[in-house]
């Protein structure tokens, strides 16, 4: 589309494991739902990633569930869920009208429950499973699976056995072992890494001396998170040969490009959709325009093109001077 005469259109497609996406932009789990179809045509997206579901119905956390912080927001929604059966009956069919891969995000308190749920959602209409292994693992004292390589490997191996669908692992920034965790996913047969979920954070109302979230702690998302998850995306792309889907603080074309250049093959947009509901189509169109302006034939040609950090020796003025 829009390509000037004689100039080929930019190839926007990317491959994530077994899937081909028409473009690299998709929503982040929990920041997207059917209702967004009232704002723009969801058929324009690279994939549809849904809010994490659990096997049984859950109500979620007490309010307040979100609060603003400098450069971002905290959320402690919890995972309110109508349960997997209601999900399969009511939600999955809605998305069948689109020619867009549907990615179902799942969560469970144990590896075994994770596997059971993965098997249950492996139905026609579902294109891939995103395992939200950033959630607490009750077998590890409530620590998230993705904090350690061991628990990551264990849960991913169980999931791999349970489903033939492409399996994405969503990592957590709440760890000091990102490369090791990424390798554990690869070893266990995961197909892609979603990097990453929110980082555990907190805020206090100093007038009332109460936490600003009903759940006390919550996850930081938005622009403030970007430098952290971008670093993780780079580490994951270096540590494994799995495709990486960058996620965290993406609000502009430039943000998305930072992730692609650092090694991500696609990106997820979360918080920015709350601020600008048209953020995803805006970024898709912006990426296309940018590639065209820079003479880049295919968007995947940006992936992993980070140049050397070294400054040329002995630069004296920062501005290019003749």
């Amino acid at each position, binding site marked *: 589309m829009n390509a000037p005469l004689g100039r080929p259109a930019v190839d926007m497609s990317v491959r994530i494991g077994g899937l081909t996406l028409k473009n690299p932009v998709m929503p982040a789990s929990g920041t997207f739902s059917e209702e967004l179809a009232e704002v723009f*045509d969801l058929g324009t997206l690279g994939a549809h990633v849904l809010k994490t579901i659990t096997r049984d119905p859950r109500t979620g956390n007490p*309010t307040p*569930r979100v609060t603003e912080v400098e450069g971002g927001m905290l959320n402690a*929604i919890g995972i309110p869920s109508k349960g997997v059966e209601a999900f399969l009956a009511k939600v999955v069919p809605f998305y069948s009208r689109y020619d867009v891969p549907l990615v179902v995000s799942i969560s469970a308190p144990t590896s075994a429950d994770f596997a059971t749920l993965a098997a249950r959602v492996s139905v026609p209409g579902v294109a891939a499973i995103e395992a939200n292994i950033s959630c607490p693992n009750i077998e590890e004292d409530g620590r998230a699976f993705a904090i350690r390589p061991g628990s990551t490997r264990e849960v991913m191996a169980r999931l791999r056995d349970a489903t033939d669908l492409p399996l994405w692992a969503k990592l957590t920034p709440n760890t000091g072992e990102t490369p090791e965790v990424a390798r554990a996913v690869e070893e266990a047969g995961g197909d892609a890494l979603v990097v990453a979920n929110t980082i555990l954070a907190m805020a206090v109302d100093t007038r009332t001396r109460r936490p600003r979230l009903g759940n006390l702690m919550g996850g930081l998302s938005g622009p403030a998170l970007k430098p952290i998850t971008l670093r993780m995306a780079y580490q994951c792309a270096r540590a494994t040969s799995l495709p990486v889907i960058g996620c965290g603080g993406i609000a502009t074309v430039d943000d998305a490009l930072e992730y692609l250049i650092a090694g991500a093959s696609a990106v997820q947009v979360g918080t920015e*959709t709350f601020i600008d*509901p048209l953020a995803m189509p805006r970024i898709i169109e912006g990426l296309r325009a940018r590639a065209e302006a820079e003479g880049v034939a295919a968007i995947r040609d940006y992936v992993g093109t980070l140049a050397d950090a070294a400054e040329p020796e002995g630069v004296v003025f920062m501005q290019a001077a003749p």
Partner: protein
Amino acid sequence: MTALPVLATAGARVFTGPLRVAEHEAVNADYRLMRLEAPPTLTAACAPGQFFHLLCPAEGRHAPLLRRPMSIYGAEGDRLSFLYKVQGKGTAALATLPVGGSLEVMGPLGQGFRLDPGWRNLLLVARGVGLATLAPLAAAAKAKGMGLTAICSARAPEFLMSLELFASHGAEVVTVLDSDGTSAVEHLDPMIEARMAAGAVDAVFTCGSARLLRLLQALGDKHGVPGQVALEQQMACGLGMCHCCVRPFRRDGATVPLRVCREGPVFDIREAVA
């Protein structure tokens, strides 16, 4: 509903984009009224009780990240208006918008008030910012040939608002004040009950006060008068995606969380947990 201006893509029903500030002024010490220039197809799609999600501009070195929800105060012709109180950084930033400036809006959103064609006489009881939400009921009632009584409650006379607006739509206006004690529940209770007992109230509407909500729930129960309440809750997406705006409601014998932005902001008065 009239078709909305189609935005980015086909199938869109919610307007998202910038509107120009046509008027912006202080109504009293607390409240400001902002009128935006809007396409008539947009104002025609707005119903009383619905809201817009506004992207407040930056103020100083700190920008409010999320949008702020505001009830539709007026939507006629090419004017979309909001009546708001400066509370924190979002509304403070909103207050700095000059006439001629532009504001990103998204809406109309949520479920508005439902008017049963059989109703003849409506009673609304509003306090503070609740007025902004209930005011458009006056025009809607008039258009449907219903009678309306508006009980407007405020701290003191200088904080009463929108009286002319109600009057201009032929509503009966009753004002009650903290300053002379007339706003007390003990005073309102017999006053409203007398009207209900006389069969002069087919439905009640309220917003802005937990105390008034409880009063109307009790009186409605006693006299079999239905009602609706517009509720507030902090919002992120405003569209139903994030589930941050839930409140508990009594429905089918259980307490269930519903999204104020989607299932509300207007709810059946009996369902609200006050």
